């Protein structure tokens, strides 16, 4: 039980304590790619901890059941000696088994829902790409389909093939260099497979909306991916050009209020960092810090599990040893 409970304690600690400090680290959007890596590592380490904990819990209980006597459950008895009288023994064991089965079931349900939601996302996203390609017109020399619509909108959608969509209104608002900067931004999303990262983080956030790590993580990942795409576009076309494109599209005839969900992609933060790029010193500090935290959250559960396996960590069943 010790490994499982230590891992669960670890994941609890990360989900409760980590979100706010992690969000502070990525707020300014310096080194956005590493920021994304850090969030994904944090989310991944929690999910992996759950999975590993469930496996250990199950394995240990199955072993106990097979060879009664010198077992972890027996160790639990000594810990809870005052409570566990002879009569309560079987009740306790059944209780623990029920708990393990429930935990494993919860995890299976989570995995199934995640899988289903990803399949659904893939279907409707590809469907949308097909519809957009049908409705849109091709323009020579433009790697996008043009939609006749009054809103100034540019976006990309994964599909077969991936599609960049831009409205006639948006094209009218943009000069040639700005248009190419916008398209480079959208292309960067597709080339970087950002839609996959967004699909997974959003699905987790939708399945477990009460967990700040997942909801805040999904929002931050979305925001940082925009910045990654901005950086790629800026490398090819200059950050001024990307900024001016952003300003041009944000002008008159705004997107109808409420039409877009409040996803908090932080246009202003993007504009500010394009207007005043960070200093090399700041960048290195951010890179170092983000890398260190990423390594920490990846090794966290491994170290926790190893300490618990050697009976060094003070959590759960190891206290009995």
């Amino acid at each position, binding site marked *: 039980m010790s490994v499982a409970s230590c891992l669960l304690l670890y994941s609890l600690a990360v989900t409760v304590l980590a979100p706010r400090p992690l969000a502070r680290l990525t707020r300014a959007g310096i080194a956005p790619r590493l920021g994304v890596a850090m969030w994904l590592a944090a989310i991944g380490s929690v999910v992996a901890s759950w999975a590993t904990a469930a496996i250990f819990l199950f394995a240990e209980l199955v072993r106990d059941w097979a060879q009664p006597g010198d077992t972890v459950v027996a160790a639990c008895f000594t810990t809870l000696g005052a409570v566990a009288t002879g009569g309560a023994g079987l009740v306790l064991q059944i209780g623990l088994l029920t708990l393990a089965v429930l935990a494993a079931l919860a995890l299976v349900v989570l995995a199934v829902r995640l899988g289903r939601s990803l399949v659904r996302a893939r279907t409707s*996203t590809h469907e*949308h790409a*097909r519809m957009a390609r049908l409705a849109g017109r091709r323009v020579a020399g433009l790697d996008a389909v043009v939609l006749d*619509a009054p809103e100034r909108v540019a976006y990309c959608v994964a599909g077969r093939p991936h599609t960049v969509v831009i409205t006639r209104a948006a094209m009218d608002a943009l000069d040639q260099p700005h248009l190419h900067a916008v398209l480079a931004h959208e292309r960067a999303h597709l080339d970087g497979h950002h839609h996959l990262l967004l699909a997974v983080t959003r699905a987790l956030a939708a399945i477990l909306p009460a967990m700040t790590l997942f909801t805040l993580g999904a929002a931050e990942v979305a925001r940082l991916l925009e910045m990654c795409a901005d950086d790629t576009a800026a490398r090819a076309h200059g950050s001024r050009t990307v900024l001016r494109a952003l*300003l041009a599209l944000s002008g008159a005839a705004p*997107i109808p209020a409420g039409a877009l*969900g409040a996803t908090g992609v932080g246009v202003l933060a993007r504009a500010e960092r394009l207007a005043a790029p960070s200093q090399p010193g700041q960048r290195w500090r951010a890179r170092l810090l983000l890398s260190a935290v990423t390594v920490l959250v990846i090794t966290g559960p491994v170290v926790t599990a190893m300490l618990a396996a050697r009976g060094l960590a003070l959590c759960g069943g190891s206290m009995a040893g």
Partner: protein
Amino acid sequence: MRGFGELEAVVIEQVWNREDKTTVREVFEELRLQRTIAYTTVMSTMDNLYRKGALDRERDGKAFRYWPTLTREQYSARVMRDALDAGGRSDLVLTHFLEQMSDEERAALRRLASTEEAG
């Protein structure tokens, strides 16, 4: 009306490009110039599109005359509405160049724009 198969999309495109109601024969003659295709294939595709509600038709002698239930513009508007709604859904993954802004954000962005113009 949702998306279409590859051939259905080609046919819809043809119907959209015509001003008037059209027949299977007309669409077939047009498509034959672009690809190898059988008359019956075009006929069954247009029949499918009618069943899906994408095309409407009326009898004209022995044949049917077809027209789209949605114009290209109306279909575009649907795609756009879909795209603009995507922010509130987790099952449609789009990345917009520009997301919705609050009024404060818009004002701050305008200030930034004016310093940009000055600079």
